[in-house]
């Protein structure tokens, strides 16, 4: 029996009707072979529009329908649900995108109409060969993994755990806290960063639903949404946290001094160390990069003095396997590399600092106990130059993007400096001030008005040392004159970049990066916390530069998304998956190699599809020389007919 097809063309107000003669498209389609009904309506997605489709399917006993409207990413679900409501399989409904792919990109009504007709005809040809499909049902592991223990990771972990689901929080450093714990005060309220973060860290460590794994890294991930298998490498700290009493005797005897990462290299620490006093978990770690050897004969001093015998040189790296249902990636940021910013003397002159170093100088727990002193001679700097956009907004030499938070923290830095050194002078070189955000503009105004910070609109050309001062040559483009400042200290608002190792993790997780290496969201507006891989979500500065409130908000958003998976009994997977024609498959395995989802494998010389892993991307289909593997409802025969229709045949 011949299949009956209905076509429904949407005006989308004038979005489509402005460049496409919708009535003509519907009329032409009515004459197309195999089309029984062809109608148009002003807003097909509205209730009356949907009802029109439902009634028509029932009345005309249609086998399948084509809705010519906007992109299927928007209303495919709407119309498939309508088709289902009318009693046909949802996959018997296809969308012909005549808006994004036609009306919006064309100006000429005649050409636009002709193209819309072809697009719709090609969808008619496709839908006619569509198979009725049922979603694939899969069980859910109701636990989550959070990668990264900065503020975003902490917030996401707490939000998920507080709904009652178990969370594994993985952090590669010995303590959670991320960069936020290094900060002195936070804008725009100038409250102490550690004071607001440490309660959350304690909550994480005490939470019965959170399994905290510090000094650990995700090694391998397999599986799919709802059922990921994660291998986590737990690096040995050589200190038993249960036995350690935090007496600090070990650091006194340790002979090795290493760079203190927490103080951004402004101070040193021992090879055995606690990252900072409020570290979570509160314990020491032995950094084997500096330790002379894990045998008593090499040194062994720390073990000798450790009364509770907490030091265990035999501790080994462990690989721990965990099953989780959803994953949140909150790997944060690092600062743009020093060596790239040599024009500002960064990395060359001791008194040219980056923003995080300045945070440490201002911090009560910092190397100078909160006194702002020059690292070189411990004198109070009387003139300090702050340079914004150091590495940001510079597509020729550095990063093209805006690091977003620098305008605000530079204002804060200048303000804090003035609070510490009231008779000092702060200068800020800037391109523009971007202070959008609640209370942000007022904050910047406060820096100018109350603290007398001098804002100079312009770029700095050169920074060099001269007679114990740091000479800063710049230009004030508003006054139109060159500026020369003999500064005691220069603070760079260094660009943010994705944290080290993020690109390797991206490959393991099979999520995507944008051109700058930040994690790519599934849709910049409507799916900002979802990664391109289902079940994996993004939080914090790993996705793009952002400040604390934004990171926290995104983390809570990601947590809600993760919970929306964990709260399901079963998940449903799209049945548009690859299918192998066994008689054509020669078992060459090329599709196995190209499959980005590891959904294919060779079995007895033929390819086998794991339907749950398959996302229906069609890479295998494009690779197979023999057309032996095809995604359901996108078969060569369908594509052939679609091409024929598009060519006007």
């Amino acid at each position: 029996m011949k299949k009956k097809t209905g076509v429904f063309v949407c005006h989308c107000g004038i979005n489509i009707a402005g460049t496409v003669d919708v009535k003509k498209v519907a009329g032409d389609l009515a004459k197309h072979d195999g089309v029984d009904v062809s109608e148009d309506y002003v807003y097909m997605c509205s209730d009356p529009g949907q009802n029109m489709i439902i009634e028509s399917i029932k009345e005309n006993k249609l086998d399948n329908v084509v809705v010519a409207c906007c992109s299927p990413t928007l209303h495919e679900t709407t119309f498939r649900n309508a088709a289902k409501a009318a009693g046909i399989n949802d996959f018997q409904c296809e969308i012909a995108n005549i808006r994004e792919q036609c009306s919006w990109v064309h100006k000429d009504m005649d050409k636009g109409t002709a193209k819309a007709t072809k697009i719709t005809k090609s969808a008619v040809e496709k839908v006619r060969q569509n198979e009725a499909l049922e979603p694939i049902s899969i069980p859910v592991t109701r636990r989550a993994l959070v990668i990264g223990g900065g503020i975003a990771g902490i917030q996401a972990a707490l939000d998920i755990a507080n709904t009652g689901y178990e969370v594994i929080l993985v952090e590669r450093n010995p303590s959670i806290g991320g960069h936020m714990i290094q900060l002195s005060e936070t804008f725009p309220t100038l409250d102490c960063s550690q004071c607001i973060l440490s309660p959350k860290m304690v909550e994480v460590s005490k939470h019965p639903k959170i399994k905290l794994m510090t000094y650990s890294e995700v090694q391998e991930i397999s599986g799919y949404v709802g059922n990921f298998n994660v291998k986590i490498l737990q690096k040995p700290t050589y200190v038993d946290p249960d036995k350690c009493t935090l007496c600090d005797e070990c650091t006194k005897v340790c002979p090795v001094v290493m760079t203190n990462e927490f103080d951004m290299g402004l101070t040193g620490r021992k090879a055995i160390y606690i990252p900072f006093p409020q570290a979570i978990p509160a314990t020491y770690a032995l950094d084997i990069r500096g330790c002379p050897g894990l045998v008593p004969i090499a040194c062994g001093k720390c073990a000798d003095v450790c009364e509770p015998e907490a030091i265990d040189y035999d501790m080994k790296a462990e690989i721990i396997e965990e099953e989780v249902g959803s994953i949140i990636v909150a790997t944060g940021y690092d600062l743009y590399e020093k060596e790239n910013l040599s024009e500002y003397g960064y990395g060359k002159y001791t008194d040219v600092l980056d923003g995080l170093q300045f945070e440490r100088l201002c911090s009560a727990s910092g190397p100078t106990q909160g006194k702002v002193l020059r690292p070189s001679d411990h004198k109070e700097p009387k003139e300090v130059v702050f340079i914004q956009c150091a590495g940001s907004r510079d597509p020729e030499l550095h990063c093209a993007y805006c690091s977003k938070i620098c305008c605000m923290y530079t204002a804060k830095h200048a303000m804090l400096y003035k609070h510490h050194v009231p008779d000092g002078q702060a200068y800020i070189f800037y391109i523009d001030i971007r202070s959008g955000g609640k209370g942000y503009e007022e904050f910047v105004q406060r820096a100018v008005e109350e603290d007398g910070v001098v804002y100079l609109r312009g770029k700095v050309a050169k920074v060099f040392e001269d007679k114990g001062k740091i000479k800063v040559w710049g230009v004030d483009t508003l006054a139109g004159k060159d500026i020369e400042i003999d500064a005691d200290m220069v603070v760079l608002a260094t660009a943010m970049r994705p944290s080290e190792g993020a690109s390797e993790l991206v490959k393991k997780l099979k999520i995507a990066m944008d051109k700058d290496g930040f994690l790519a969201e599934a849709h910049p507006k409507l799916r900002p916390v979802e990664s391109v891989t289902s079940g994996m979500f993004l939080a914090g500065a790993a996705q793009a530069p952002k400040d604390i409130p934004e990171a926290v908000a995104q983390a809570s958003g990601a947590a809600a998304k993760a919970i929306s998976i964990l709260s399901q009994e079963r998940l449903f997977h799209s049945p548009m998956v690859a299918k192998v024609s066994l008689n054509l498959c020669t078992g060459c395995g090329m599709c196995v190699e190209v499959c980005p989802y590891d959904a294919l494998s060779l079995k007895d010389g033929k390819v086998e599809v794991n339907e749950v892993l398959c996302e229906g991307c069609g890479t295998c289909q494009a690779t197979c020389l023999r057309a032996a593997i095809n995604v359901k409802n996108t078969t060569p025969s369908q594509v052939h007919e679609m091409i024929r229709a598009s060519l006007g045949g």
Partner: protein
Amino acid sequence: MVNVEDLRKEAKRILKEGKVKYVIGYERGQNGLMPKPAFIKDPEDVDRLIWNPTCVHNLTKFLVDEKKRKAGEKKPDERPVGIVVKGCDSRAIIVLLQEKYINREDVHILGISCEQTGVIDEKKLANKLKGKKAENIELDEKGNFVISVQGGTIKVPAEELLAERCLECRANYPVVYDLLLGDKTKKKVEEPFKSLEKMESLSEKERWAFWTEQLAKCIRCYACRSVCPMCYCDECVVDTINFAVTADTTASEKAGKIKWVEKSPVPSENFVYHMVRAMHLAGRCIDCGECERVCPLDIPLRFLNKKLEKEAKELFGYDAGFDPDEPSLVSSFKDEDPEDFIR
């Protein structure tokens, strides 16, 4: 130097010991100088095997035939097949291994090094003979081919007789083998893609004119496809009648058969056929030159495949047929792969 006796000895041994089903090699042809493929089952027949610069055929095609025949047998003889291969032919085996079409244990490879020469081009030879009949051909120590003809000999410098592919050869001895005869010194080839230069210097219009003329000649005898060891698909895109129907073939599969190419040998369809073949051989063709050799219309098919070989080499650093464990060109992706073709 390759001593054909060593080849015969090994063939005899493996046949006698029952290590192989049969040995595929070269034997003297019935008509003139050119040899024909030999299939030796009896150890006593090994003296039929020959080796000389006329052994042009890529015998690996018979491994494909063997696999297809075996698939149809109820109780197949699982022993390997012995096969004589040159450097280029061995690369075809590598591709078949890479594509898991055959297993390494299915073949016993008798590799022969072309040393510093290669095989001759029949057409070039015919030009030199000017109607005379050649009885024998040998390489002298100065690198000349000495052709015995009735009433004397003709001496020709090797490069004037060698097949084009041998002049551009990058694997003058087998990459994979169980026994290797001859010298393993790498041949120096300064310009492996020299033959393409002239074609590449033509304008788009001139190239179109050239190929229109060449491909219009094609009678679609499919000799190029039949001789190619990489054309092993059961069903070819150009055949709609030859669709491999088995018990598993569903009705929708049968209904879904598409006629991508018309059967008639008209220029447009010939273009599609040759383009599809060339694209399907990208990163797989190992330049054995057989397609061009067997073409009854002298279509310079090697240009198409050589060009794609060059593209693969220059864009992706990929050389077909050297490493069986490497993923094939079309199934591998590297972050640093060029994308400048996306416009």
